[in-house]
């Protein structure tokens, strides 16, 4: 029997309300434009509730959610252990005039957990800590230039954006140098051409770029980059906001066998509670102390308590390993079904952060059709962003996902027969 094909009248009604009072209705990565909802009718626009691996939209449809709120959901939505820790702290106090000692507990736990961390500094969003990292690198080195790898995403501050983005002026990005990922010659060249001028190299642990397969670091790439940074007194910043704790509980730099000078975390740090952290080496601690950098809610205690519970549970579960195993199982089965229907499905990146692309058609329209049919049947995939696996995902969820994916492959195949 064919599955129910979702429609979203309530979502549409809410969106119509929203766009009267909110620019573009839903802005940013959760919105239909940046989220690449193609076609728009295939996607829910508003959520109602979430539990474990599931989200329910405003129309009451259930989805197995492979976006995990774009990363924060790592243990399962509303994880009881994390929520209980948060509840207990909330009863004691959250946003207070003096920070709770739970902040120290959280920092100590991060220093014990993250291989390259000698200290931790807390904020709210990934962008807060990537910006702090770059500012700290400039403060420490007294240099201006920052090296990026094309296809990067490091947040939304002006320095992270590009010259053709709305609101950005040339001066915002004039010190940005852009290199191709996995190009060792380009690394040599950029350090030669900018001797004593590069404050930092900032990179995600591997290339999560959109519209093309995700790309792991080539053999020796990180080792070379680490050495160049050390030899040139340049700060090496790892932006682990997206991948953090899905590759390695000790940090993605540890997974790839090197140590960052500064490493940025957010998303999975507290299973959805609002906190980010910059961790770093001892030699940068005084620099951070000297900086004027704070925010109204940055020292709130509830997310710290949630973060502690989240990290402790991730350790107990050996979370990165089980996420990679679940992702690998899904990867294998999706590829098998795709092949059965004549589709060349590429599943790239680390399996806990898998990226999907049907490669039969370079325009990606076929891929967009398949994703839309999956979403309409209750599997929340996105077209052009990596996905996220969470610890509550069961074998039954994976089986249901594969069954829906197969139905969607059959529909797309028939449409193009």
């Amino acid at each position, binding site marked *: 029997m064919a599955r129910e094909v979702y429609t979203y009248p309530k979502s549409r009604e809410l*969106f119509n309300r929203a*766009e009267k009072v909110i*620019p*573009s*209705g*839903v802005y940013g990565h959760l*919105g*239909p*434009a*940046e989220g*690449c*909802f*193609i*076609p*728009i*009718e295939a996607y829910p*626009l508003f959520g109602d509730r979430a539990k474990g691996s599931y989200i329910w939209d405003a129309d009451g449809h259930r989805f197995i959610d492979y976006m995990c709120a774009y990363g924060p959901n790592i243990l399962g939505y509303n994880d009881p252990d994390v929520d209980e820790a948060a509840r207990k702290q909330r009863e004691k106090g959250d946003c207070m005039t003096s920070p709770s000692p739970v902040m120290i507990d959280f920092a100590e736990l991060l220093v014990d957990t993250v291989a390259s961390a000698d200290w931790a500094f807390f904020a709210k969003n990934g962008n807060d800590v990537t910006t702090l990292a770059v500012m700290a690198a400039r403060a420490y080195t007294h240099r201006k230039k920052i090296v990026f790898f094309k296809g990067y995403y490091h947040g939304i501050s002006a320095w992270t954006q*590009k*010259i*053709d*983005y*709305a*609101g*950005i*002026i*040339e001066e915002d990005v004039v010190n940005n140098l852009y290199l191709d990922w996995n190009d060792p010659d380009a690394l040599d060249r950029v350090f030669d051409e900018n001797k004593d001028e590069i404050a930092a190299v900032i990179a995600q642990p591997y290339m999560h770029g*959109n*519209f093309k397969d995700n790309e792991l670091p080539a053999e020796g790439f990180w080792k070379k980059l680490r050495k160049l940074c050390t030899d040139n007194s340049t700060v090496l910043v790892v932006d682990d906001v997206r991948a953090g704790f899905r590759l390695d509980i000790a940090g993605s730099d540890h997974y790839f066998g090197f140590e960052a000078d500064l490493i940025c975390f957010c998303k999975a740090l507290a299973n959805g509670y609002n906190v980010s952290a910059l961790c770093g080496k001892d030699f940068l601690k005084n620099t951070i102390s000297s900086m004027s950098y704070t925010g109204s809610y940055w020292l709130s205690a509830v997310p710290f308590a949630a973060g502690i519970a989240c990290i402790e549970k991730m350790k107990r579960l050996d979370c990165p390993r089980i996420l990679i195993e679940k992702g690998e199982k899904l990867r294998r089965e999706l590829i098998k079904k795709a092949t059965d229907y004549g589709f060349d499905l590429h599943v790239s990146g680390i399996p806990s952060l898998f990226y999907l692309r049907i490669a039969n058609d*370079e*325009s*990606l*329209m076929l891929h*967009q059709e398949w994703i839309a049919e999956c979403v309409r049947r209750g599997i929340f995939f996105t*077209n*052009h962003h990596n996905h996220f696996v969470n610890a509550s995902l069961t074998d039954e969820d994976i089986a249901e996902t594969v069954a829906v994916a197969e139905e969607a492959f059959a529909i797309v195949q028939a449409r193009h027969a």
Partner: protein
Amino acid sequence: MAANIDQKTLAYINMYGVLGGLVALCDTVPEARKILGRSGCSVGFAVRGGPQATLTFVGGRCILKEGTEDAAIRIPFSSPEKFNGMIDGTVKPIPSKGFTKISFLLGKFQKLTDLLETYLRPTEEQLEDETFLRQSTTIMFRVIVSAVAQIANHDKVGQFSASNIVDGAIRMEIAGLAKAALIAKDHELTYSQKVPKNIMSYMQFADVKTARDLFDGKINSVAAVGDGLVRIGGMISQIDNVNRILSRVELYLR
């Protein structure tokens, strides 16, 4: 989003977008064909350090081609600024060739450019006429899409956007009214009136009103995606970057 207007880029837009609008005008508006009648002539614009192209009027149609070698009337400009001055009416064009055809320039050509201005800068009252609205929107669409290609190829910020556009055809369309393609090759864009069968991506405006409101800045394309008034598909990185270039068209054509 740097706001500097580059005169050379503007000259290319004026040549292929604005004067290129005469091609769209003759294709779209019967009155333009009536002005031309059966007579034919060609006018070449040679801009030092800028574009060189010829508008050929024949059989009621207008064709735009690169180069001025075969033009019956040739008008040289010592710089892009001078050429841009002709377009905004502050510089008087002086032909270097074709003095015997000058009556075409002062007569039919002038009438056509005046008519084009009517369609590119219409009044609210004119737009209440459905036929005029459709014709004006079609011409504007072609001018704007053509301008996108010029900005991608010549404007510093546009070139940055184009550097992120992969090869392949991008179909731009107003549903039921007009379509054109931007062909990306080695990070340069070429405007094509003919849309290839195989495209890499598309951006479709739902109807005339949507297109008009977008052109007039009354609605935003990102918001319009949420409403389903703008449909996008395929290689979205192409569309994303074309959209960034589109946002610069207003800077040059306001």
